[in-house]
């Protein structure tokens, strides 16, 4: 655990991420629009709290993996992703769909298994898709989406566009063969300028109940990309401003070069791995409380208050709006119908079999 302390030490990290911002020329612009993203993050947090409640109420079935604690990573990168860019992620995907612009109602409806859902009720929590907005899902097999993202990156460049493909993945996914095989190909294709891939490792310290130190022979995850000749850096995933600045830079480099780059965003998940992970025998309450001091939403709020862009009134309004947005989403989901029985047999094949 020693080598992880930087992350769970609020004081050190707070300062360490401070300068990055101070020295940023784009700071004002950044911060102004950051209010919008603060609001998005608050909505996402409320949304996730609601999904956990709905799960307990039996409205949501299957597995439910919430994003609470990691919002700054998804928000920071999606804030900088261009409208025509595309991205892939794993099953912890609700917030990404929201950040990308999907209506909270359609996301909640998917979790409720309704036909109005983002995937018509067929995918559920783990398989959100919003292809119209460049969101290519939503996958349940750890690491399984990584090769897809590498191929997708090749495709958009092959098609002559300057679109980039972003791939979120968990720390645990790095120990799978799919990661290794895909990233090595990304390195090879990137050398030809044919792989505009942005890899974002969301290092939240655990893969289910297994810590990074217990599952990866090296705990400096960014260093693992050297084997694929892919430049990688580690950053504080709790600091939205820092993430966003890195995202802007990395995405621009990848877009310009057609070569992959990776970022290890050090973050943390506040809830259990999934709704079933109640006791969390792999970590202490103290550890969680300690990290909560660096709640990405609290950090951003503090930053914005200091910059005079937020005050009690504004914050209150935003939370009320968030509350309303989420309630409307739940009502929409409740009101919606389940898929019709015929839906069972559609979407298996595109052409008549």
């Amino acid at each position, binding site marked *: 655990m020693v080598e992880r302390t930087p992350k769970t030490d609020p004081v050190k990290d707070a300062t360490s991420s401070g300068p990055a911002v101070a020295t940023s020329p784009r700071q004002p612009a950044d911060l102004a629009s950051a209010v919008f993203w603060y609001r998005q993050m608050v909505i996402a947090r409320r949304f996730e709290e609601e999904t956990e409640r709905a799960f307990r109420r039996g409205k949501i079935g299957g597995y439910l993996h919430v994003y609470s604690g990691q919002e700054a990573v998804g928000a920071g990168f999606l804030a900088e992703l261009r409208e025509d860019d595309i991205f892939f992620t794993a099953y912890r995907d609700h917030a990404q769909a929201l950040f990308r612009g999907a209506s909270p109602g359609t996301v909640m409806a998917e979790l409720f298994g309704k036909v109005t859902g983002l995937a018509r009720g*067929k995918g559920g929590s783990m398989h959100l898709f919003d292809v119209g907005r460049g969101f290519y899902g939503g996958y349940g097999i750890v690491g399984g989406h990584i090769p897809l993202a590498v191929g997708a990156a090749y495709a958009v460049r092959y098609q002559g566009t300057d679109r980039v493909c972003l791939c979120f993945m968990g720390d645990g996914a790095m120990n799978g063969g799919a990661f290794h095989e895909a990233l090595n190909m990304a390195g090879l294709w990137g050398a030809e300028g044919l792989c505009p891939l942005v890899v974002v490792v969301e290092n939240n310290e655990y893969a289910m*109940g297994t810590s990074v130190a217990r599952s990866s022979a090296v705990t400096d995850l960014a260093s693992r990309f050297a084997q694929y000749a892919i430049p990688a850096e580690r950053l504080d995933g709790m600091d939205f401003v820092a993430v966003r600045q890195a995202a802007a830079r990395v995405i621009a480099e990848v877009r310009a070069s057609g070569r992959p780059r990776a970022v290890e965003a050090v973050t943390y998940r506040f809830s259990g791995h999934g709704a079933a992970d109640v006791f969390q025998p792999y970590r202490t309450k103290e550890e969680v409380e300690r990290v909560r001091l660096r709640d990405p939403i609290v950090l951003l709020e503090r930053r914005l208050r200091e910059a005079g862009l937020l005050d009690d009134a504004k914050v209150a309004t935003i939370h009320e709006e968030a509350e309303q947005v989420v309630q409307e989403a739940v009502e929409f989901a409740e009101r919606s119908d389940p898929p019709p029985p015929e839906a069972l047999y559609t979407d298996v094949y595109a052409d008549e079999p």
Partner: protein
Amino acid sequence: MAELSYRDAIRSTLIEEMDRDPSVVLLGEDIGQYQGTFRVTADLLARYGPRRVIDTPISELGFVGAAIGMAMLGLRPVVEVMTWNFSLLAFDQIVNNAAKVRYFSGGQVDVPLVIRGPNGAGVQLSAQHSQSVEAFYAHVPGLKVAVPATPAEAKGLLRTAMRGRDPVIFLEHAALYSQKGEVPDGEFALPFGQAEIVRRGRDVTIVAFSRMLGVALEAADRLARDDGIEAEVINPRTLRPLDTRTLVESARRTHRAVVVQEQWRPYGAAAEIAASITEGAFDLLDAPVERVTGADVPMPYARNLELLALPHAEDIVEAARRALYRTGPGLRPSDGGTARA
């Protein structure tokens, strides 16, 4: 006799064998510190330590392969796959190494390996987490495939698997872990390749395994109650080796058979069972062997669709009626209609 849950039947067998034989080691994701996703290995890390209860990275191909190597060197690894869906990543190691290394080495090595974990559909786990993999593995010579339906079977078959010298695909069912049942005491073991006639009947033979056994028994009760049809229900217990003799003998007595399976109909396990029964009982069959299976689609998330995709007692009842010509044949989702674009 003691009452145990399916989960505890498995867990207690692991404990008994680990106490008895130091060469038994467990590997898998989150089986130790996390206590196991289905708590089958709860407490075992504290009990046996990290050398014998090995928490692995998310590396199915790697740790299944490592377990094969351990087995070749004389250990008795029991691998937990968090769910069998993930075993598809280890398919090459299981099919090309575990199943065959004994053969292509000319018999120089044994592979006393057990791979176990939950198989089949849970509740709303959707397409990637609801598969039933028996047909994939039962096709492969060199492997043995067990499909316990009760706590007693879970214990008896697991003991046989752990005492044997061959790789065993041990398919538990997520929906059964909390089911309770009587389990014989002591070193109780059940042989592979011996089906059990769970319910005697003269009118129709119903073959079902794993979670479907319970559904089949429910159907048998309904058939007796509503139609006065006495179904003979048989549980093969292992799909490889498959006890065709018992199945055929029953079909020759009842002249009719229904085979039940949770997974996709085309090229599923029920096809082999139906074909084998027909080959052995053809002259005495009064109707084609019926298959009751899951719908031929990836598992949908929405509960209403998921329920349509899975076989229910009602589907078995209707299949039995069709076999007895008590009704016209009708294609129902759970009989695996073909998907439409």
